[in-house]
């Protein structure tokens, strides 16, 4: 990978006990670039993202953000190192209010107030700010999870299947928000996806993951949609 990459993943290995799930994945992503990792269920998308975030330990390989090696760091240090994480299933804190959920991301911030930019991106969060997170709809929770990750001021934003279980109209909104975020902050976004149309809405480059390996890469301009669809079909 080139030295300018914001996120640099090199020869990543991950296992659950004896069984290896990720077999040597390498890729990079530049500043102000969105890449999508496409793949069916069980192909290793979530495992890859958990390993990038430090939720699962690496068996081997390297994760670098902005030239800093974070491979051995605990999750909370990776956040300080510039990784923001929107997990699969959203994982907002249901017992905390929307406002408190957002505030949890301010650990490393000097100013402990929620930036107005977040509410500008997701006005619904402002309306709901006193509600418990657990009482929001799926789409609202997804926006909350993205907002919470953005509050940490990441250089690299990881989103694990942000469209899963969300109604189509909200999917459009989320795609719009992601493009808006990239325009505003010029950060790197890595998103895992099964829905090709969503990936094409947001990503500059697409990878296909299968059986814990990256098996295909293409830019949006040169995409062979039929081939990717074949990978995604069951």
């Amino acid at each position, binding site marked *: 990978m080139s030295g300018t990459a914001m996120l640099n993943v090199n020869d990543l290995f991950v296992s659950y006990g004896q069984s290896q799930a990720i077999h040597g994945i390498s890729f990079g992503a530049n500043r102000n670039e969105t890449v999508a990792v496409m793949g069916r269920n069980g192909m290793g998308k979530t495992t890859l993202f958990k390993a990038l975030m430090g*939720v699962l330990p690496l068996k081997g390989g390297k994760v670098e953000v902005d030239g800093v090696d974070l491979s051995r760091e605990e999750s*909370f240090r990776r*956040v300080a190192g510039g990784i923001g*994480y929107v997990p699969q299933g959203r994982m907002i*804190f249901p*017992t905390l209010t929307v406002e408190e959920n957002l*505030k*949890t991301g301010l650990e490393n911030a000097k100013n402990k107030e929620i930036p107005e930019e977040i509410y500008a991106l997701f006005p619904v969060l402002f309306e709901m700010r006193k509600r418990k997170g657990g009482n929001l709809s799926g789409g609202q929770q997804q926006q909350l999870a993205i907002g919470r990750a953005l509050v*940490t001021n990441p250089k690299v934003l990881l989103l694990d299947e942000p469209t899963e279980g969300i109604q189509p109209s909200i999917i459009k909104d989320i795609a719009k928000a992601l493009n808006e975020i990239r325009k505003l902050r010029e950060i790197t976004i890595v998103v895992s996806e099964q829905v090709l149309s969503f990936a094409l809405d947001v990503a500059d480059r697409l990878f296909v993951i299968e059986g814990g390996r990256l098996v295909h890469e293409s830019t949006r301009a040169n995409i062979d949609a039929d081939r990717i669809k074949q990978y995604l079909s069951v």
Partner: protein
Amino acid sequence: MSASEMWNIFLMQGFAGLSLFSVLLLMGLGLAIIFGQMGVINMAHGEFMTIGAYTIFMLSSLTETYAPTLTPYYFFVAIIVAFILAFAVGWMAEWALIRHLYRRPLDTLLATWGLSLGMQQIFRSTFGAKEVSPTLPEWLLGSWAPAEGLDIPINGMFVMGLTLLVTAGVFLMLYRSRWGLRVRATVSNRTMANAIGINTKKTDRMTFAIGCGIAGVAGAAFTTIGSTGPTSGSLYIVDAFLVVTFGGAASLLGTVASAFGIAQTQSISEFFLTGSMAKVLTLLTIITILMIRPQGLFALKVRR
């Protein structure tokens, strides 16, 4: 016995129950936040209370020896010192022992029980097996008699006030401070809290230490209503566990309600029955209620 005498006895026993309620509540609060945050059942919690009680005793002796004129005021400082000492010992215990045993509930149970035995022996070697009592300031003694035949002890009222203050402080900290936010996020989802930038291990240590510090304050309160021995704390640990289980783990409001219920049942029935019969009655009531509501009095109603 006339009806008004009965009523006075009822009131006075009720008030004695409030003192017991105070100690149980302070003990239960500490246990509940530690259990809620990291699922650790701290068997040594009673000994952290004893640390607080001995702190008061030591400071009272020191004041008497070196600055007798300050005797009326030392108590306030002593309460703060009791908190700080119990906090510091709790911090070290978490660092040296507990943090290596998370996710192994039976091992933490054994380890903290061992810690409790060790601490008891340290107390015995340092202060002797005999029970001691600090010299309380004048203004804490005596009683307030609002009516004929009705005596409300002042130390009891003081302990009540202290408990209200500490409980309010804990609620405020949990719902308004950064530490509280960290605790509530960690309780809600530990992995995710870490992945949003919260140092959950540091939060664990802080929470354990604060829980122990509150037990230290409970010990300070305890010295006004009883004398301190090496095993004083272990006498309260069972009741404090009852308070937490009965109230519903991880519910502070439940802890308050159940401490009140247990202390009052115990104290009022103690007057009309013997001490052990009162205990039997209390336990029977609790067991019956827990059989019907295993989750305790107050359980969280949010979907997880």
